């Protein structure tokens, strides 16, 4: 606050009750006697209220679906040949080396990978992106998903379940 008027930043902090008690009292007392600062204060209060009102009335996009595209696509496209033809194909020399490589890969997938990924679960990146968008729905100006997952994907929420939701309102410390 200068000798004449209150600085805008300080006034905003005052309106948001963020000033230390001494400064808060000084601003309050200045506002009682200064019409110009009072007008500025009222304008800021109006602005804050307008934003709050908007934040309360914002319609939030609901990313209703969840995604697991790859396995669907793989399963759909995996229309393999008959067993006899497959065995015959394996016996061809041209596939011997790739087959060996595939065997090594299978060993990795079957023995090594389960240790790294014990559940064998594969979670689509889209799950995380959708959940991020969903949980931001109470943030006033959150954008959400442009293309709603519920219309974009084949999957639904059937393989996704909420476990802990208390609905409590106390902000806790960072874990």
């Amino acid at each position: 606050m200068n000798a004449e008027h209150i600085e805008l930043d300080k006034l905003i902090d005052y309106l948001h009750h963020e000033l230390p008690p001494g400064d808060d009292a000084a601003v309050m007392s200045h506002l009682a006697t200064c019409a110009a600062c009072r007008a500025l204060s009222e304008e800021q209060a109006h602005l804050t209220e307008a934003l709050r009102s908007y934040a309360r009335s914002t319609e939030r996009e609901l990313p209703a679906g969840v995604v697991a595209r790859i396995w669907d696509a793989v399963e759909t496209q995996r229309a393999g040949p008959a067993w006899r033809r497959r065995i015959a194909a394996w016996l061809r020399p041209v596939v011997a080396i790739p087959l060996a490589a595939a065997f090594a890969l299978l060993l990795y997938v079957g023995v090594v990978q389960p240790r790294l990924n014990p559940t064998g679960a594969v979670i689509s990146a889209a799950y995380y992106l959708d959940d991020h968008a969903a949980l931001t729905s109470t943030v006033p100006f959150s954008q959400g998903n442009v293309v709603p997952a519920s219309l974009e994907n084949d999957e639904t929420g059937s393989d996704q379940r909420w476990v802990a939701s208390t609905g409590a309102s106390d902000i806790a410390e960072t874990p």
Partner: protein
Amino acid sequence: MTAPDRLSYVGEVEELRFGEQRSEAAVYRIEHRAPNLTRRWYLAPSDLYGDSIISRGDTTYSIDVKRERVVVAQDDAIDDQVAEDDNFAVLSSNYKATFAPDETYDGRSVHVVLLTNKYTGEVTLRVRIDAQTGLVLQKEQYAANGSLLSETRFKQLRYVGEIPMGLFEVPKGLKRVDGPARSLPSSDLTRVVGGAGFHAMGPKYLPEGFTPVEGDVIEIKGVRTLHLLYSDGIRTVSLFQNESAAAVDFSHYRVNDTTIDAHDAEYVEDGPTTLVAWSVEGLHLTLVGELTLNELEKIAASVSR
């Protein structure tokens, strides 16, 4: 874009999100009947043409014409006034709101509000509000370097007295499919973390103004996953973690390699949203947010017990 409980209107909305590798856009006709009925008819992208979403309070019906189905989903958070107030308080403490000179937008007089980040001094959000009704007609979100991250704009807006209820009826004859039923997320993060069932990690570094705001625990394909949301009131970052070290499927995304504190990591960009995934100390971690990759990597590197 907005659905105030006292105004009924029709119009067209364009939503754009810009990313370095990929941008997204959607255009839809919107009909909103106060207080809480909204229908959006998609015109673009082309694969959504003809689809629509009907919102009735906290229940949403996504009418998927091509798959001949309706996905019904519920989100209790839509009415979570307490969380909204908490998040608005976070916004107020991190952003300075100022009026820019009034303008005319799509033939209507609008107030222009700028939200400036108190720590960087950069304008993060520009909002154009109908001077007569208070409806937000346009908003632009900017990155820290001043580039446009996203824009949402109303066009051909008309306020109307009544919209026939029939417009908000869900068509019959389509298969009904349950979407996710989302309960209220919790801001009691100690309790949420306690419900995860494993010793969770948290970031030691967050950009200035960011604070933990909400969280929940979900099971995705049987994998119990803790989801914590951090925000400065406008920008948000989610940290997901699960003990099962489930692999992340990056299909449909252009995946890139990086390192987080000497651990191999991968990241993808979806419009302005970036997702980074890595594993450390038996936990699989995924960070999602609208920050730069640099910022996300800094946060990721600080995640520990």
